[in-house]
């Protein structure tokens, strides 16, 4: 198996795990975990988190729409 396939496979496994985590908690009925939206609702009350997320969001747009991605 090539390193390319392993790297892409790792991303897909992590995406699948994120989906499972979101799916199992989406109704906020899980006994040990709250939903992702509830967690964001709370975390976004911290200024540091708001700024961190909005700067990262802005950078993502910058990275793909302004900068040229280096291959």
């Amino acid at each position, binding site marked *: 198996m090539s*390193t390319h396939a392993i790297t892409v496979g790792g991303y897909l496994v992590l995406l699948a795990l994120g989906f499972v985590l979101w799916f199992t908690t989406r109704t906020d009925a899980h006994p040990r975990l709250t939903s992702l939206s*509830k*967690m964001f609702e*709370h975390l976004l009350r911290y200024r*540091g988190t*708001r700024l*961190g*997320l909005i700067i990262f*969001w802005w950078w*993502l747009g910058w990275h793909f729409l302004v900068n040229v991605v280096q291959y």
Partner: protein
Amino acid sequence: MQNGSRHPVSLWVAAFALTAALQIFRGALEDTIIFVAGGLLILLSTNVLAKINLPSAKLTAGSNLDWAGMILLFALAFTPRHTFFNLGIFVLLLPLVLFMAWGAHSEPVRQLTKRDRATRFAWSAWAIVMCLWEFSANILGQLSKVPDAFPTISVLVDPILKLELGQAGFVVVWLLVGYYLLKAGIK
């Protein structure tokens, strides 16, 4: 990614410092400046500037964000990428979104519950592993002599954005995320 009111330094500062270090390794000067400046701003916002509040809700009130989103959608979804036009839009956008995200409060009134903490831990663990995988691919990719041996997320996503539909789809999702962050953050 915040360690509550007991510690004035947000974990975002550490995350931005690590990302800046990676950008230095990549030789990406602009990205290094963005992450160093961003980390410094977050650090100041939770210390020296913690008591400075801004009327951010006035900018996000009513349908202001809806109109801004529509303008950005047409400006970014159907125009060529990597142009001075895009550069100008992003330079203008940054101070606006920083103002809107700053807000009139720096910390929540309610403390985290046990379930909140467990959820934060689970998603933080997921995000950290994802970042480590991406950072590793980035570092190994630069050390490797074989092109595309260790593709990063950017390398995998960029070809999709070369398609008109891919670029439009990316802009829509990107704008929706920004809209949610600003609307939910200012509540």
